[in-house]
């Protein structure tokens, strides 16, 4: 148990560091692109504005640990008040494990589909008719529908 406590505390330190660095508050949303499922990451970017609208936020910060994903996010970020940053994968995982243990920020979305082990999103995609865009809109962003026409 002690080891796990240290792990979570480490995650909290990462959170405090990033919170300051990216000036995260309730006017911003934080999107963490994990690279677990490319399609999920893609639709998370496409519907980011919808999520911002739901959260009544006017800016967004995107984090990614994969350079390719970060580049995609950075290109997307030129469209509206969004900033994309490249971070270390280990820190990103620490942040997520801490988030799973204590919800420290309302406006954060991680695009994991199979982590932690109770995350059933991957099975939903595999075993049901739900597609990636719906998974993002309903499951991750908690929007009321997947509006394919009016993305963003």
């Amino acid at each position, binding site marked *: *148990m002690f080891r796990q406590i240290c792990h979570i505390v480490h995650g909290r330190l990462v959170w405090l560091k990033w919170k300051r660095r990216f000036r995260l508050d*309730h006017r911003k949303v934080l999107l963490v692109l994990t690279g677990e499922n490319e399609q999920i990451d893609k639709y998370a970017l496409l519907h980011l504005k919808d999520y911002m609208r739901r959260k009544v936020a006017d800016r967004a910060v995107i984090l990614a640990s994969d350079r390719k994903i970060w580049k995609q996010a950075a290109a997307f970020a030129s469209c509206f008040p969004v900033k994309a940053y490249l971070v270390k994968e280990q820190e990103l995982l620490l942040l997520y494990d801490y988030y799973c243990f204590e919800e420290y920020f309302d406006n954060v979305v991680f695009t994991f589909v199979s982590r932690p082990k109770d995350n059933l999103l991957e099975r939903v995609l595999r075993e049901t008719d739900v597609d990636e865009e719906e998974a993002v809109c309903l499951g991750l962003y908690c929007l009321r529908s997947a509006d394919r026409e009016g993305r963003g």
Partner: protein
Amino acid sequence: MYNSEQKRVAKLLKKMYRKGILTEKSIWIFGVSDNTRQIIQMLRDLGVEPAGILDNDPAKQDSFCARIRVYPVDFQKVHLEKSHIFLVYSFFWKEMVRQLQSLMVSRENICCLYQKKKGLPRQFWMAWRGRRICHRLFRIYGELPVFLCPYTGTGDIYLIGTFWKQYLRAAGIENYIFLVISSACKKTAGIFDIRNVELLRTQEEGEYLIKYYMLCPDEICLKLLNDSWGQIRGNPLQWFRGYRGLYFMELFRTFVFNLPDDALPERPVLKDAGDELDHIFEKYQLPEGKTVLLSPYANTLADLPDDFWVLLAKKLMERGYRVCTNSSGEKEPAVKGTVPVFFPLNIAPQFVERAGYFIGVRSGFCDVISAAEARKIILYDRENRFFNSSAYAYFSLNHMGLCHDAVEIEFENRTPYIYIEMILHALTGTED
């Protein structure tokens, strides 16, 4: 809302009531949910009736929540009045407050009743408490897999019971600990052959166990018997409820029990409850096969106005039925003119079978009595949504396969009275 949380919110509302805040202003509650229903009940206990409910979901607008109309959040009349107070109790309270403020509602007229359990030390303390509970259970039963039902919904427990044997067989589990947080759930589990059912000392103990599991998933073999649970933040499954055919039974079958699509719920074998029933039927002077049990209360789904039940009971009595209400006490009083009856849930199906007739709004109690060989009429508000589908589509007893003989009626909540004749017709099978 757990019991301790209910007490906290009730205390807060009482304080506001004493200060006159709730009596001087019209009360609006943001969001249709179980919590909102509980808050409405608390307000009613204080003699205060909310003016309306606000909700962003167009599917919920214009419907009723605990008999109060639901309006869109930008419903203009609401925000122009300064004499309105807005109660918010939701995990999403921050965005709700911001939305209200964006509609020019002053912050002092918004009252947030939600309180997040803050602080990392507290989270660790909760996990430590969970570890102690776990060790307490292991001392009694040995180190067995733990199944946890951290909710009070009897319908969920009933559905679990119908798949339980198949699940254990498929998963190769022989022994286990089955944890529930209410005695009603324990009674419901008693309908099935579920072993080692343990009632946790407090509802929060379930929360502590989950916290422990989230901190140390490798130290405890714990399975939550629900498709999705808020405390498990990484699992977004609940947001697909009712979407693309993912209804109540389907979600449990696939995602809780990992059973194939052809696995069907198995009805329980009802035990002989003759002596207990003799006593109850004699006590309340209920004629066998000529008694109608009314069940007008629901926690999750919409219900019907009192007048509707009074009129229905009157018509039933005129037709020679003895009418009783499933009443658990002051909070769920009997319909005026009917006999209040109370019996343990594990003999509820047998009670309905002997009574002969059942009429109720869709609630967990309907699952429990679904196996009864009786005339069962289940009422659903046509406009009542549950996540992405209608309540009827999501919870239909016949569709779930819990029974095939229930008469399920969807009613228009604005004109429920016109359904009385339909109900009488369905009950007797004759034209009236």
